């Protein structure tokens, strides 16, 4: 029955865990719609045949509906529409709430391509590899205009906005290849902004991931200095933002000038900071690096020495990326070029 209706309605394969549930509701809704419009059509036809005009001077009785008729007219559609709504909204909440054990993939959309980055290393363009049978959460932002991430087989779609992060999740039930389409109009290349989700068997995915990581490490090891490595995620600033989010820096430091547990990073670079002992220092690269490794050494006046040391937790290149990121946070406000989006702290349920 499911297969028959699915084919009749031209629905694509049901390749995610919620595709089938959504389709069940779809069948219910469409069948009600068909029954209703056919009923109205047939009643019209019947009335037309039964009550066709017999003479040009025909008169008709004055008929008003009774209150219970009007109540029926209101109640019947209200019942069905509310039923649709509650069934649909229950499913919607499920689709909007990523499970806490999901693996994260960062998605960056731009005219007209999709970039995917995994938290610990590899990235890819237009091809998203995920393990089948596992929950995958996508954290998405756009570099220019609004795009929309759409995989028909998964029944998921989520707009990708510049300047903020949106999220969606799915669980591909079996290995396979599924087309990604951009569903929000974004210009001349809108219709060719396509990508592909490749759902791999879990083991194959692990193999691919470790292979990618090895490649990354190899590249880092071969570079003469720690600073001069091929950035995993675009430029250093991008990478620094990601690291700041992952390491939880942004839980205490803001990037918009507001005071929080630690000093704001906005305009921090080369700021003349007054320390607790009254001395004044220039927040240059050296001070920033020192503060990550030995946070309690030089505390800015008015703040508590609560920051943990990141000695050994972040590698040299990552420190460099963080410093570059802090340097990029200047409030001369008139930023040129497209937004890079605010830093996003992944909030996990655990």
């Amino acid at each position, binding site marked *: 029955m499911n297969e028959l209706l699915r084919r009749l309605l031209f629905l694509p394969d049901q390749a995610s865990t919620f595709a089938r549930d959504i389709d069940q509701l779809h069948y219910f809704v469409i069948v009600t719609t068909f029954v209703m419009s056919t009923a109205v059509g047939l009643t019209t036809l019947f009335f037309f045949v039964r009550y066709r005009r017999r003479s040009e001077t025909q008169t008709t009785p004055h008929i008003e509906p009774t209150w219970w008729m009007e109540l029926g007219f209101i109640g019947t559609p209200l019942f069905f529409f509310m039923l649709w709504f509650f069934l649909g909204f229950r499913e919607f909440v499920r689709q909007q709430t990523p499970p806490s054990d999901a693996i994260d993939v960062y998605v960056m959309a731009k005219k007209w391509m999709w970039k995917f980055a995994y938290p610990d290393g590899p990235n890819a363009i237009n091809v998203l590899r995920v393990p089948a049978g596992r929950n995958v959460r996508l954290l998405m932002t756009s570099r220019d205009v609004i795009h929309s991430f759409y995989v028909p087989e998964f029944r998921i779609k989520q707009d990708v906005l510049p300047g903020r992060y949106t999220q969606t999740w799915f669980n591909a039930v079996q290995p396979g290849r599924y087309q990604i389409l951009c569903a929000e109009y974004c210009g001349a290349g809108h219709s060719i902004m396509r990508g592909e989700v490749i759902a791999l068997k879990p083991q194959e995915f692990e193999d691919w991931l470790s292979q990618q990581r090895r490649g990354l490490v190899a590249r880092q090891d071969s570079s003469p200095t720690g600073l001069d490595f091929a950035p995993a995620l675009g430029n250093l600033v991008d990478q620094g933002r990601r690291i700041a989010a992952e390491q939880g820096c942004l839980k205490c430091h803001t990037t*918009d*000038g*507001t005071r929080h547990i630690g000093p704001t990073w*906005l*305009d921090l670079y080369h700021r003349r900071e007054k320390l607790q002992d009254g001395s004044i220092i220039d927040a240059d690269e050296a001070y920033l690096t020192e503060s990550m490794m030995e946070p309690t050494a030089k505390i800015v006046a008015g703040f508590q020495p609560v920051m943990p040391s990141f000695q050994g937790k972040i590698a040299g290149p990552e420190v460099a990326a963080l410093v570059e990121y802090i340097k990029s946070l200047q*409030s*001369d*406000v*008139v930023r040129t070029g497209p937004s890079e989006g605010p830093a996003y702290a992944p909030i996990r349920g655990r």
Partner: protein
Amino acid sequence: MSHEAAQGLPEGILAHHFSSLERQNEAMRLGMWLFLATEILLFAGLFTGYAVYRFQFPLAFAECSRHLEIALGTLNTIVLITSSFTVALAIHFARTDRRRAAVICLVLTIGFALAFLGIKAVEYTAHFHERSLPGKYYAFEGVKILGAAMFFTMYFLMTGLHGVHVVAGMSVLSWLLWRTLQGRYSSRYYTGLEMGGLYWHLVDLVWIFLYPLLYLI
């Protein structure tokens, strides 16, 4: 026209499709209030934008607000409120058949409107000099917090649109002044003048909302 003569009215006041002047006045008032509703909704879009960005950048908005010339803003508020008073007086004089006084009051109102625009121009010039300008032109040294440019975007959009309404109001008032000079408005018929006055009160009212939002809080 017999239609008007039958009701003892001068020519050219009662349109052919209205049965009486009361009916026509009722229609004009209703029409005017509906029009004022559309004007308020026009500004509502900007007020919504202001609310959203005030919520998003509370510090920047508070800080930028402190950099506006509060004295000039207050002066402008006084000027506009007084002009609302004079236009109300003009209607009062017209309906009590004191045409000369009505004309003087209308001239005063237009003068206040010009004064408002002049003061606003002084403020705008200052903004241009210190480059506290909207969006991509923002280069003000005084406030460097993210969102400051957005404050001035809202500031210029709101005061700009209001300024356009002041100019429109002035044109309406000038036309009414001309009609008053012609002696069209009297105790018998003054609805046109009343409508113009209503419009001017709206222009005033919008400013009364803009002033605290932009200058005070």
